[in-house]
């Protein structure tokens, strides 16, 4: 089997047993990128040279008999909204096309400290706004399972890279489903941690109260390994949780006897693909057979979550994105005066979806509308949270589809923002309440992967990892490899 098809933990074994070198692994993955990225288009910026240098350092450590971490010498990708010192960080926006941060995001620092190899910066929907990566200001990314379809979004580049063998692991960010939905569409594992579990320092903000960085990997084991590295309190992020980080790999246990799982009936929305629903139901039956207790529960405010999200997230975005004005960094279009410069710069360099959300958010916060829209949305958010609190009094985890359908055709929803927003209907409530959730493959429909979402309580990552691992160990869905249309 080609090296790029292995998982990080498998490659780590090969490294420590000196079966292969880190440089060989990195070259194999770089070769894969060379071969397929013209089709997949997962990367905005590639850092092949520094990647090989990092790999060489790891080989030297192995040579000297030093202990290396699980991600040491294992090549991965960072979503292009995670700041990297000296490496362009564009958020897939023309407005930041030339922006080179003078500092590293905390997660980038942590990964560097573990000698992880960074292959480059992955494509995304501009400023993480979208669910298909078609909103990238540069080019769309394609789903490695079918190049005619979208990889999901907004972390579409990260998910596609992992699925296509262009990265062994990747980091994405998730504001309303942006890790889990592309993971589902691309047949990989995506984990959105509890809000505050992973530092947001250096993550270019879309909606600060919802954004969270998390891993996209080939299996649950790698997800636990990456979580071990990136989690933890950060003095630079006031909203990060000051709690110890458990060893998530201790939760890689193939046993869910007595685990109480809940199925919230409100998540099975109109417009849900019958095959997706069938796959989830089958998965539940299987989990019950493995010893879990199953219960259907109700989360009555679910239907309002999407609307609340599209008030809160754009409101925060309208403020977060105000700094892109052409004054001191980023793209500038000269104008007759400062206001003219602002208008021209922002009109030219922001894409349609970003403009749409800035306008939505600006409107929601305007005097006279604040109470009716923004404040009301905050109240709904509290109710959605209460739904989760009540649910977790009864069950340990919740299981839902990650998305109502499998990956759709490129361009299919491009002119229908509401249809696009509906793809996040199962993932958005999780961000509003701040709890963790993981998406993992649970079947195929028409050759395209289906994702199952397992939602846990606040800081309940260990439980969802154990549930996901048990499901994975009893199935083969994660073992298939995207064909890229090479082998039909």
């Amino acid at each position, binding site marked *: 089997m080609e090296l790029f098809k292995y998982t990080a933990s498998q490659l780590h074994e090969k490294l420590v047993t000196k079966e292969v070198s880190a440089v060989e692994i990195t070259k194999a993955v770089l070769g894969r990128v060379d071969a397929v990225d013209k089709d997949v288009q997962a990367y905005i910026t590639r850092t092949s040279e520094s990647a090989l240098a990092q790999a060489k350092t790891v080989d030297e450590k192995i040579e000297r008999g030093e202990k290396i971490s699980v991600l040491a010498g294992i090549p991965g990708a960072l979503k292009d909204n995670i700041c990297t010192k000296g490496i362009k960080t564009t958020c897939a926006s023309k407005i930041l096309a030339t922006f080179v941060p003078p500092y590293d995001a905390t997660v980038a620092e942590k990964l560097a400290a573990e000698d992880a190899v960074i292959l480059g910066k992955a494509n995304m929907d501009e400023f993480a706004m979208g669910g298909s990566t078609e909103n990238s200001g540069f080019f769309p990314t394609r789903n490695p399972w079918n190049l005619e379809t979208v990889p999901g979004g907004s972390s579409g580049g990260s998910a596609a890279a992992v699925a296509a063998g262009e990265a062994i692991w990747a980091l994405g960010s998730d504001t309303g489903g942006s890790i889990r939905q592309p993971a589902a569409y691309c047949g990989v594992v995506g984990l959105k941690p509890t809000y505050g579990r992973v530092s947001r320092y250096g993550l*270019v903000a879309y909606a600060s109260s919802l954004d969270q960085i998390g891993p996209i990997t080939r299996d649950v084991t790698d997800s636990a390994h990456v979580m071990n590295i990136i989690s933890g309190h950060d003095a630079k992020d006031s909203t990060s949780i000051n709690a110890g980080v458990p060893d998530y790999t201790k939760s890689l246990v193939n046993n869910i006897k007595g685990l109480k799982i809940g199925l919230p009936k409100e998540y099975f929305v109109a417009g849900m693909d019958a095959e997706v629903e069938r796959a989830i139901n089958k998965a539940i039956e299987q989990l019950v057979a493995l010893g879990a207790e199953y219960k259907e529960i109700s989360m009555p405010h679910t239907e309002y979550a999407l609307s609340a999200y599209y008030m809160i997230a754009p409101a925060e975005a309208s403020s977060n994105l105000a700094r892109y004005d052409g004054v001191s960094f980023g793209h500038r279009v000269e104008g007759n005066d400062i206001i003219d410069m602002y208008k021209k710069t922002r009109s030219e360099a922001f894409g349609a979806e970003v403009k749409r959300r800035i306008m939505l958010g600006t409107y929601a*916060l305007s005097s006279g509308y604040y109470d009716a829209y923004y404040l009301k949305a905050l109240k709904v958010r509290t109710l959605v949270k209460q739904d989760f609190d009540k649910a977790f009094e009864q069950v340990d985890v919740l299981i839902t589809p990650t998305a109502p359908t499998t990956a759709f055709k490129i361009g299919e929803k491009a002119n229908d923002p509401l249809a696009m927003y509906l793809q996040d209907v199962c993932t958005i409530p999780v961000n509003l309440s701040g709890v963790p959730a993981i998406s993992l493959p649970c079947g195929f429909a028409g050759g395209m992967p289906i994702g199952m979402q397992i939602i846990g309580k606040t800081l309940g990552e260990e439980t969802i990892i154990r549930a996901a691992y048990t499901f994975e160990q009893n199935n083969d869905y994660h073992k298939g490899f995207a064909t890229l249309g090479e082998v039909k």
Partner: protein
Amino acid sequence: MDYEIVIGLEIHTELKTNSKIFCGCSTKFGSEQNTNVCPVCLGLPGVLPVINEKVVEFAVKAGLALNCEILPFSKFDRKNYYYPDLPKNFQTSQYDLPIAINGHLDIEVNGETKRINITRIHMEEDAGKLVHSGATISSSDSALVDYNRTGVPLLEIVSEPDIRSAEEARAYLEKVKAILEYLDISDCKMEEGSLRCDANISLRPHGQTTLGTKAEIKNLNSFRSVQRGIEYEVIRQEEILDDGGRVIQETRTWDENKGITASMRNKEQAHDYRYLPEPDLVPIVVDPARVEDIRANLPELPDARKQRLMNDHGLSDYDASIITASKAVADYFDQSVQNNGEAKAVANWLMGEVSKHLNSEGITILECPVSPKQLTELLALIEKGTISSKIAKTVFEEMWSSRKDAEVIVKEKGLVQISDSSEIIAIVEGVIASNPQSVADYKAGKDKAIGFLVGQIMKQTKGRANPDMVNTLLRERL
């Protein structure tokens, strides 16, 4: 018509923490442009603010000193507006849950005490500074931004519309400034912009309870401009109302050179700040025990110090008010008294010669070339009769310019007072002999003539003769 003047003040003061409010950059004034900056205060993509705990402590101090209630739970909000000195295009401030509310301050104007209520005190970040290429904004074709000041912590102290005259406004501002100085939390230098003030002014017929339409006056950068700006604005509004017109709600700027206020923007053009709870900061929870700890450790404040000066040193209410209006002056007074200076004499000299010299050079007492110890030594020479009060002024002059001690100057210049009666008698007799006409005038009942004779004696002794002895000895011999 005679109107009631209604004024509310918004005072902005920069806090003198070592580092900025949300990052570790220095707050030092006068550094080279754009050197006290980092990704956080430059608002680069991806950065996050972290509250400087010292700012919260300073805000609590100010709140307590201004008799406010400290909210146990307050939060930051984003005030959104576009301006090139604001790198994020929002200012992180506090909106509906400020750190302190419902305070008050008693001021004295024309011998009467008046209470000014304080609505709120909140924390926020300062903006940067624009440097225009031309002499004025309109004649400039470009501008540069200095972000050194971006993120310097500010307190905004908002009063209720309880102020009724320009004098009250000035007295209130001076007292707030004194308190901030006593707390040692701000430099309060209006000329450097570390203390700024906006005034909301409206008029209404006496007896009317509803407020008239207000204008907000900005750019009041000195105590003088606060007073003049308000006085001007009151007259402007009076004229409009007298002519049957209506005052427009607007923001106006004070032009110090022209001595007028001019419209900046009206209500329709007013900013909609679209306040948003700051999602990158957690709420500020101030433990009541911590508040009590800060309260217990508050320094002596102007009112208490004034009482102490009156009780312990016998100063008059007026003198004590003037001396305690500035912490530095009060410190100078205390240090002088500790050096065995006689309190009343120290007070007179501080309010007289010292203050006169400071004003003429435009410096503060912190830069005074004569130290409290030196001043008390000078006063001791007067007390002992070594020099007269009049000569002491000459000596002080010399101390100011040469920084020498009084005793050295008196010795060098031979300014020791002549108190030897035989020496004085000789001079007195000589003056009587050579001025028969004045002597005759005096004897004829013209009291004024004695002044001329004393003057002659002083002239001969270059002012060094003990004035009391001269008087006595002269009268004896006439």
